[in-house]
């Protein structure tokens, strides 16, 4: 038997499933209002699947019917997940803000990898996900991504509890 090496990141199915199942409010940092941008894809999908989306981007007043804030510190309500669509070098200050507002998870999107920011968040007691798309992981683990022929690595003899679309 071979098993994957344990990683400090939340990257196994059980941890990701727990994060996706217990989180309700997602602050999407760097969310674009352009419908064809990946951040819009992901936020729209997550909103359609029952999450509260809070856009964070100084360039807009509102996206996806939600008021858009200039920074995480301006959000007047608790945030579970800070989902980051920014360049890796910009994640450090965002991690500081995520810690300051009491977020539970720092989630760096697919292609975003700032190890130092991830470590900082973990040291402060947050869970950390890196280089993963929240939409893709939701669909991979809770159903839907099988549509696209992606290797979800989910093996089970139980009926899925959640069906996408």
């Amino acid at each position, binding site marked *: 038997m071979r098993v994957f090496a344990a990683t400090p990141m939340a990257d196994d199915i059980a941890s990701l499933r727990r994060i996706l199942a217990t989180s309700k409010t997602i602050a999407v940092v760097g969310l674009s209002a352009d419908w064809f941008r*990946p951040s819009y*894809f992901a936020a*729209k999908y997550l909103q*359609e699947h029952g999450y509260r989306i809070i856009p964070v981007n100084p360039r807009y007043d509102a996206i996806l019917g939600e008021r858009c804030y200039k920074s995480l510190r301006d959000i007047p309500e608790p945030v579970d997940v800070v989902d980051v669509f920014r360049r890796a070098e910009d994640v450090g200050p965002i991690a500081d803000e995520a810690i300051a507002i009491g977020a539970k998870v720092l989630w760096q999107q697919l292609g975003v990898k700032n190890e130092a920011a991830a470590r900082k968040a973990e040291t402060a007691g947050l869970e950390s996900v890196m280089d993963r798309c929240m939409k893709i992981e939701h669909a991979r683990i809770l159903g839907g991504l099988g*549509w696209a022929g992606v*290797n979800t690595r989910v093996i089970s*003899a139980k009926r899925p509890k959640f069906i996408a679309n």
Partner: protein
Amino acid sequence: MPDREFGFETLCLHAGQIPDAATGARAVPLYQTTSFVFDSAEHAASLFNLQTFGNVYTRISNPTTAVFEERMAALENGRAALGVATGQAAEAVAILTLVEQGDHIVSAGTLYGGTHTLLGVNLAKLGIATTFVDPEDPENFRRAITPRTKLVYAEALGNPSINVVDIERIAGIARDAGVPLVIDNTVPSPYLCRPFDWGADIVVHSATKYLGGHGTTMGGVIVESGRFPWNNGRFPGMTEPSPGYHGVRFYETFGDFGFTMRARMETMRTFGPALSPFNAWMLLQGMETLPLRMDRHCANALAVAEFLQGHPQVAWVNYPGLPGNRHHDLARKYLPRGASGLLSFGIRGGARAGEAFIEAATFMSHLANIGDAKTLVIHPASTTHRQMSEAEQVRAGVSPDMVRMSIGLETLDDILWDIDNSLRLAAKA
């Protein structure tokens, strides 16, 4: 707790399918439908924009086909897969997703005849040139690569010359050049060889062969490793807004399965060689027993190779599983569980004796397929490779006296009996 990495046999039975949400059905349901209803105009728009994952039309995706695709991705230890109508379609869709007019391909010359024609004739007509190289020296691939080269292509186990290519070295050369290595893994199947473990980037299969395994069903599949750096500057179609799919940037949006999404949404959706859901369902029945069948195919083929080696009517035997074969060391590295059911031999008496041998067979079937549960025989020079010139045939490893066999799952003594009997009759012809 880290995720368990399940074994190959478990993946053959479970990967890609959990019991049906609506009914609890344990077997894979067959969704024999062309289309899927939209819940609302907004739902339809979301699906077309790829913002919601879901099915629209079976030419693009289908839940039964999706099980086949995910299972293949799991068996190849890849990231994602796309099912298509045939093995030829798998090659064509994979290649057409990577190249455009003026681009260049470097391919091993040791290819299935249909692939040789696709590259050398059909793609050439579209302005896509292929340089065929002798894979015996992997450096031949490096020497043929140009600035317009977009992929390197080879068959893991060449058909019909039954040569093993040095995947790891060719993958290193492709990596140095910043182009993906596409491996046709049809003959080994993922049970015998997993090209991604040796650095290949894309795998294609004719699922018609060992994957289905019973000679009933056409199918093909493309699998991507998820590791190729598509943003290396050589593949703007992966990184720039897609004119064929309203501005989506496939690599940025879908990351390590961006190639599969692009092959699906840009190439298969428009050219149209979709896999029938019924065929996907048939292939899945075969794949459940792939490991058991491959072990027996390999054991039977090795026994036949040893028998032929000692036979007076046989001039030479080519089976990489035989000690002393020119590719035995490569076979031990890349095919440690066995060298498949495919072998060839030279019959004394040349082409005429070859044809007589095939006609004398009792249950060995004369046909153009390989990887059936039944034993198959063919004379490549007069059938599968007849479109080639004699020089091209030699380069593809086809000689006039060559008989190719795909050893099946019949009682081994019966297979040896039919071969021996046919050789005796051929000697009298």
